[in-house]
């Protein structure tokens, strides 16, 4: 089972005040810390689990700058065998262009399964996986919460709304977009990342992939980024913890749910 897993480095946004850049087309990134996209972390773990069960190899790919190699090293430390970074230079990227780049790069490889995260925590697009599958002409399924490989097929669970899964069989090779919670991603130590430096991390540029100008033309353009429209918002309860607790208990009493 040769598995390709597509990953992305994204800013950590929980408990972070995001600021909009001067051009109003993105966030000010100077002060941000970066991590592997949460969905992709589950995808890497799933790839490594499948390799451990079935043998084969795991290749991690990202489209990004040198700084993004951090997430590839992390994937190697988790158990990926090799990594590829495709440097887009200063090209404008959207989900479509990234999907064309990945399609071309993966198209030259041997693979049985391609995994992506459902979406990335920055632009929340969720389109790259399905586009890559279409580009490669292989089957696909989205929002996957379980995978069992059997007789050249993947038996998968797609998480639907309202506490329901759809179970289906997908012929290999296939692309599956992985939902969070599908497994428990292993812990990665600094030492593990250091050790993984011995593994191969290739870097290539767009020129060597033979992409057309059309492939590299974004289909969508972020014209403006802005803060959410004002809402009435919550009435904030101030004071020390004791006073806050008293106010909350009174509220519960008032709403008729106090014991």
């Amino acid at each position: 089972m040769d598995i390709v897993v597509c990953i992305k480095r994204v800013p950590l946004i929980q408990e972070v005040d995001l600021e909009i850049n001067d051009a109003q087309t993105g966030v000010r990134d100077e002060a941000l810390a970066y991590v592997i996209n949460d969905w992709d972390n589950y995808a890497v773990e799933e790839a490594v689990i499948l390799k451990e069960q079935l043998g084969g190899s795991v290749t991690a790919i990202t489209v990004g700058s040198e700084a993004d190699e951090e997430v590839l090293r992390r994937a190697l430390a988790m158990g990926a065998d090799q990594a590829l970074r495709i440097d887009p230079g200063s090209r404008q990227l959207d989900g479509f262009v990234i999907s064309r780049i990945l399609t071309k790069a993966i198209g030259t490889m041997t693979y049985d399964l391609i995994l992506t995260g459902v979406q990335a925590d920055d632009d929340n697009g969720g389109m790259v996986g399905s586009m890559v599958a279409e580009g490669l002409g292989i089957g696909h399924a989205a929002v996957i919460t379980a995978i069992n490989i059997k007789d050249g097929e993947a038996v998968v669970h797609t998480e639907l709304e309202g506490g329901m899964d759809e179970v289906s069989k997908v012929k290999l090779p296939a692309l599956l977009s992985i939902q969070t919670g599908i497994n428990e991603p292993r812990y990665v130590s600094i030492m593990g990342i250091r050790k993984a430096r011995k593994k191969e991390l290739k870097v290539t540029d767009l020129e060597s992939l033979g992409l057309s100008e059309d492939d590299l033309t974004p289909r969508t353009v972020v014209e403006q980024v802005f803060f959410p429209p004002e809402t009435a918002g919550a009435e904030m309860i101030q004071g020390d913890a004791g006073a806050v607790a008293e106010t909350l208990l009174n509220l519960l009493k008032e709403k008729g749910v106090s014991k």
Partner: protein
Amino acid sequence: MGHIFVIAEHRQGELRDITFEMLYKARALGREHAHTLTAVVLGGPDSGFGDRLAPWADRVVVMEDDRLSAFDADIYTAALLKLVTDEAPFLTLMGHTPWGMDLAPALSVRAGLPVATDCVDILLEEGGPVAIRQIYNGKLYSRVGFKASTGYMMTVRPGAFSLDEAPPEDGAGEVATRALDAEVPESRKEFVEFVDTGGGEVDIAQADLLVSVGRGVGEAENIDAVKALAELLGGTLSCSRPVVDRHWLPKYHQVGTSGKTVKPKVYLALGISGAFQHVAGIAGAGTVIAVNKDGKAPIFRVADYGVVDDLFTVVDALKEKITSG
């Protein structure tokens, strides 16, 4: 002047709410900009969906075939490709649902039409359509334009547009049935079954008071402190997705679109940031009280009352007041 297509979504014989939410929005856009509205439904034989959709659109295109009765990205893509090629709609809308996320990007590539996903608003401007999206988990919004094209696609976030329960009175679209006339490949996917994943020993949908915990709880061991508070208050413990993803609580505790939709009198959200999938699950809650360290967390936008503090500080203070009082 053009056509707007809305691709209906259905599961187990029922049209999903997202279908009507899209039709509602598309209808308003169509009226404003003189576009006609076509509802498109792919389904099994004699689905009856055509008549259900007719009041909402100028026209309903029903494609019925055994191979269309269950969602299948391969077959649906082939069928819709033929339809959008034949009729060249100006704008095609689909739900940003697990199925729409599987189908729309692939169709966009095959049809050569640009797509914007998970849109929360749609503007039709002189220069072309504009999608309004949420990014960074709702902390920011973006305005997205398209490369000029003959047609455009968008997937629409469930719940983004209000659902008018009653069909418009002036609507009565004609229903046209079309055979599955596309060159349909053998599918690479085979439907097996639907499985219920939400059941368990507690039904959070029935609770009057939900004490709900999110990512902010930090680690599995800390859940007990919140559980103890829930018991002291006579409430029921629930949680947001990250807690289930990390296997700290079983899925039947999960509130949100992929978990349960709840309607407690009071929802106490502790360390929950308020991703839209979560917020959609508490739309029916009476009073929402949020406690979060991050004063900018989106949960405060929908909460009635907010406390910016560490959740354990508040949990401990509440316990102390209850046990001493």
